[in-house]
């Protein structure tokens, strides 16, 4: 081990003193925070020796210095291109809710919104909500719980269908270097449906650290399309975690598009808590330079007749790295489980590196489970074929990369959300550097 390595323990001391200094500014939840501090002191922060963190190294992050965000004035124009057309929007700047930038009309009777800071205020004596994220699991959820300051609390009533997408936009202001611990709590009521998009973006360069935990509860027969778009500055850090709990016949459609941050990890854990719950998890990471992007999943089948599918694709250029760790756990009570997982990687450069680690733990015998992983380069024969038909190199390459990623969007309705995702995927493709022949 190198001598310069900052031991995670010293980082905990740092966080402890940080917490002590901030204590008065952090809203409520003192019991939760106390529990989180105990977990942190006992288990420490993840290192590469922690099994689920073997491929993602946080040492650089823990060496970085952050400073509290200044209250930066930002106009809606500054992030207009990131607003999904026709959506309700809830906007945060450097981790703090901005009422003036948000736009939430027409939700009365269907959903209630409150900022986490407002929600937690005064809730000190007991657990403010039945949390479903496991803070004892290796990761940054305990740290998030210790230091959470703001976020979205969004409750969708029973039996409603919200047609317009709801977008949570987390903006990092220019040159910001803030440490943000955001917590979002979303409940979708019985037999209700909605689309939620979480967008993480920077205006200009930012060296901020965003640590976000989102808890999703889908009651019986609820349907949620949940999209995460992480396109923050490539000098920032993003650790995101989603914990979802699905009741009977609830259906979660999750899609993560990740092209930002120097280091990003998107983790999702889904508890299929009752019969016939169904989740589809998809992810696309498009990375270049020295970016690192990790998608980690954990799908737990607790009851019978549940379905889960996972399909993750990565496109890597330059010296970038991606990680996919996909776990399926089938409990003894989960007969007739249908669980599938696939991860595919397309390397545009010989310097790029993709790691894939599937993990299936199956305790029931009448189940259908599968997994697969593939890594490949651009098909040179296909490229040659397209070029002989008059198509120039960059266009030919984009057609092939586009073909690789496009099936992830299949099955999504043709709406503004899909258009939005397509727009950012295409813009990434256009920015691929002048054509490099793979040697």
């Amino acid at each position, binding site marked *: 081990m190198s001598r310069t390595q900052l031991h995670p323990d010293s980082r905990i001391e740092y966080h402890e003193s940080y917490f002590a200094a901030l204590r008065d500014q952090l809203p409520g939840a003192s019991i939760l925070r106390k529990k989180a501090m105990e977990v942190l002191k006992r288990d420490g922060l993840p290192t590469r020796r922690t099994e689920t963190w073997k491929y993602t190294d946080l040492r650089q992050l823990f060496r970085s210095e952050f400073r509290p965000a200044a209250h930066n004035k930002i106009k809606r124009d500054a992030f207009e291109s990131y607003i999904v057309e026709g959506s309700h929007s809830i906007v945060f700047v450097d981790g703090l809710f901005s009422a003036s930038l948000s736009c939430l009309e027409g939700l009365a009777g269907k959903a209630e919104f409150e900022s986490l800071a407002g929600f937690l205020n005064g809730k000190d004596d007991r657990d403010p909500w039945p949390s479903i994220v496991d803070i004892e699991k290796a990761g940054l959820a305990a740290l998030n719980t210790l230091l959470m300051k703001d976020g979205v609390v969004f409750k969708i009533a029973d039996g409603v269908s919200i047609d317009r997408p709801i977008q949570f936009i987390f903006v990092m202001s220019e040159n910001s270097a803030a440490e943000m611990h955001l917590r979002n709590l979303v409940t979708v009521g019985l037999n209700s449906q909605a689309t939620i998009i979480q967008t993480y973006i920077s205006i200009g360069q930012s060296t901020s650290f965003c640590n976000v935990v989102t808890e999703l509860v889908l009651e019986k027969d609820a349907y949620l399309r949940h999209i995460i778009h992480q396109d923050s500055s490539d000098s920032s850090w993003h650790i995101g975690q989603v914990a979802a709990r699905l009741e009977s016949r609830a259906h979660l459609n999750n899609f993560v598009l990740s092209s930002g941050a120097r280091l990003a990890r998107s983790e999702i854990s889904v508890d299929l808590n009752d019969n016939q719950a169904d989740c589809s998890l998809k992810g696309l990471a498009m990375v270049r330079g020295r970016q690192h992007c990790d998608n980690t999943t954990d799908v737990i089948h607790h009851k019978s007749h549940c379905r889960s599918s996972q399909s993750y694709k990565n496109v890597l250029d330059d010296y970038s790295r991606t990680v996919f760790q996909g776990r399926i756990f089938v409990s003894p009570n989960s007969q007739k489980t249908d669980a599938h997982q696939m991860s595919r990687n397309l390397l545009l450069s010989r310097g790029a590196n993709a790691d894939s680690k599937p993990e299936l733990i199956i305790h029931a015998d009448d189940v259908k489970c599968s997994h697969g992983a593939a890594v490949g380069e651009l098909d040179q024969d296909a490229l*040659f074929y397209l070029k*002989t038909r008059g*198509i120039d190199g960059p266009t030919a390459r984009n*057609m092939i990369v586009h*073909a690789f990623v496009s099936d992830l969007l299949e099955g999504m309705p043709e709406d503004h959300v899909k258009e939005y995702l397509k727009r950012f995927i295409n813009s990434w493709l256009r920015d691929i550097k002048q054509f490099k*022949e793979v040697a």
Partner: protein
Amino acid sequence: MLLINNLHVSVQGKEILRGVNLEIGTGEVHAIMGPNGSGKSTLSYVLSGREGYDVTEGEILYNGKNLLELDIHERAGEGLFLAFQYPVEIPGVSSMNFLRTSLNSVRGYRGEKEVSAVDFLKLVREKARSLGMDDKLLQRPVNVGFSGGEKKRNEVLQMSLLEPNLAVLDETDSGLDIDALKVVADGVNALRSPKRSTLLITHYQRLLGYIVPDFVHVLAKGKIATSGSKELAVELEKKGYGAFGFDKTEAA
């Protein structure tokens, strides 16, 4: 149209073509025959610009231009077309999108206007029908799930859309039954004109019964060993390559 002078080509350091000379005039149809491993496909790949084929000596002039200096897509823009022996499957790329991008790329290169979506659809349907191709094939990704014959028809469809000046057909007859061969040959013949030239690369004489060449050349050991009229092909077929002093199969 095409002038090949003393062409030497190596693949991974091994010399495959050893001084090929060939001249194809405008409006002419030439056939190159030869035993396996004689360098026929190498010649087609060099013409189209595939990587890994090193020209160590000689030149190729196409309409007076140095062909070897042009990028692959520029050659297509200049009117060179290669029909593949083994057309490539491209999962995820729709046939229609591919054909339209191809046509508009070539038109753009030639300074012509793009074809609108509506006009394109009409054009491609008409061409496909004349080749006996099912419209449904074009709903699929490029060549994916196509039979051998369907792939070859697709090559001819692309050729008739792009209207090349010089079409190089590499073993277009291989893997075709007699009906498919006729349809493909009709498609190629329909494009014959005093302004267009064709180079047929084939192992067997069979195709030449349907697309009658003006000249036949025999490629052996990386050189044009002999040239003649269409009768040469008939004679070759009757007596075999061996009778002409060529090995039936030459080690590549």
